């Protein structure tokens, strides 16, 4: 139990360490000297030279030996100083990330959880109903084969442009002032729905396929047949199969988190949604390396936290792990 968790935590710590190191190494290895281009771009901004000097000392320290640069980089990470953005000069990178990450969390968490629940239910239904299976399976395969951004384009074309049900750009109307009041929340939800739907649908397909296969597999297993021979109802057998099938699906959730976060980056681009993905892309196009690196770390941390939460949940729902924890086995 403690071993299970400590091993996971070790992996996460190493991942974080590598992500930071990667952030440190890449700009130093890549051709084209991105640092030089930073210098020239900051120089034309008002007060840019002083800020840049401080930044370069902090983040690069180019005259110091590499190892010292590396330690300084870590120091700046722990003080939460990722530098100043060029794109939104002179806001600090941390500030920009803080503003954007809320949109991501409010988009990703519901989409992931709901698609997982609905997908499992639909998959289990499809697994025991041959007729429904013939119709649903191709749909599931189609959904899971769609690139996130393409499906985003499809839903925004049909639901947004053709039927005009939902707005297809931004996180709230331009005329709105963000605040905690009803008109804003309704407006926000309207803008939120289509990006949510795109991620939800793509994920739904994958979960349904997984659960369908699990249910078919479980139903042909010996314990199911034995229960059937004893006269247990179909419903009871199915519910046992479902319980066994859910465990690999939770593990699958941990594997998918990284993919979902990646997909969200492209979906946000389609809907011009001001989450981390959209800003990350803008920072690439504008060669805003400080912002790019800051967002990369933020996304990695997001993925690590999500994985850690799933590990904990898994411990509680898997009876084998849970019982070994309380010492019953």
């Amino acid at each position, binding site marked *: 139990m403690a071993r299970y968790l400590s091993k996971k935590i070790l992996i996460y710590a190493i991942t974080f360490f590598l*992500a930071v190191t990667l952030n440190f190494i890449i700009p130093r290895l890549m051709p084209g000297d991105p640092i030089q281009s930073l210098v020239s771009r900051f120089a034309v901004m008002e007060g840019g030279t002083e800020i840049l000097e401080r930044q370069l000392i902090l983040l690069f320290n180019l005259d110091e030996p590499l190892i010292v640069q590396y330690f300084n980089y870590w120091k700046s990470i722990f003080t939460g100083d990722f530098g100043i953005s060029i794109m939104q000069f002179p806001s600090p990178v941390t500030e920009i990330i803080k503003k954007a990450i809320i949109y991501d969390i409010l988009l990703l968490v519901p989409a992931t959880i709901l698609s997982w629940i609905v997908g499992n239910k639909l998959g289990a239904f499809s697994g025991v109903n041959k007729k429904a299976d013939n119709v649903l399976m191709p749909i599931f395969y189609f959904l899971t084969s769609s690139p*996130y951004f393409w499906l985003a384009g499809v839903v925004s074309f049909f639901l947004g442009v053709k039927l005009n049900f939902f707005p297809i750009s931004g996180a709230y109307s331009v005329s709105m002032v963000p605040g905690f009041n009803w008109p804003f929340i309704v407006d926000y939800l309207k803008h939120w729905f289509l990006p949510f739907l795109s991620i939800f649908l793509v994920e739904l397909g994958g979960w349904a396929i997984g659960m369908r296969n699990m249910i078919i597999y479980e139903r*042909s297993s010996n314990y199911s047949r034995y229960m059937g021979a004893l006269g247990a109802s179909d419903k009871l057998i199915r519910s046992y199969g479902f319980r066994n099938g859910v465990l690999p699906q939770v593990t699958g959730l941990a594997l998918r988190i990284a993919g979902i976060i990646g997909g969200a980056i492209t979906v946000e681009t389609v809907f011009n949604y001001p989450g981390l993905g959209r800003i990350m892309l803008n920072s690439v196009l504008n060669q805003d390396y400080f912002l790019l690196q800051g967002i990369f770390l933020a996304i990695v941390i997001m993925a690590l936290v999500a994985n850690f939460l799933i590990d904990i949940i898994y411990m509680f729902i898997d009876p084998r792990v849970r019982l070994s924890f309380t010492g019953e086995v």
Partner: protein
Amino acid sequence: MAKDFWKKHENLYYAITNKKVIFGMVIFTLVVLLAIFGPMFSPYEYDEYAGDPYSPPSRQHLFGTNIMGNDVFTMTVYGLRTTLLVGFIAGTIATIIGCIVGFLAGYYGGSWFDEILMGLTNIFVVIPQLALLIILSAFLEVRGILVMSIIVSITAWPWLARAVRAQTLSLRNQEYVNLSRISSLKVSRILREDIASNMFSYIFMSYILQFNGTMLATVQLEFLGLGPTKGISLGLVMQNAVNWNAIQLGMWWWAIIPGLILTIMITALYFVNTGLDAAFNPRLREM
């Protein structure tokens, strides 16, 4: 003669007579043919002014034209070529890496070597691929098809390595593997002849899934403008469509068709995969 052959290769018989496999292979072949021969049938270049902008699909322009008057069909088939090629190379590399890591980790299961390999794999599982790819691509100013493939494959192998390791672990303690081991055969030979050959169908199916995954990753990168720096790709066509508001302007032939072809192709490959699964796995075959 023929009868003997099929008796020996029963699985193959089930595979090529499976409806899903046939259906999927036909569609997949059609799309591949489109990518290979499509450019020859198109009278236009992908970047030339081919006709009136904004025209919906017609006889002259199968998929219509975009806002600049380029022929969308031509762009799609050229783009498909690039995207398929990158996805194919990346999928192949990722499958090879995944198998090698999986075999070694599984064969030496429980040792420190296994722990290290799996630790590495788990790290790659946790890091969001697309974010990593963005950061790698952003600093690489010139990206060719091979560089793209390598970038994509770096993040595509981990799940396969885990799956192959699990399979290898279960095969490792079989009698015949033990026999090979006490005959002091080389590890590489045991892995090749005793373990890999028994997992051939599984690896082949994983290869299909791997190809699907790398195609999706490739097209996502291209869509973000981080694809090959030269030429055109499917993701780039779709990126332009979004950037020029094709969706708002109702130009579905530009915004939706190119992606639809890719999605249909990947769906078809999933069908092949499911069909093969049923053919190779007698337990599912009964269904």
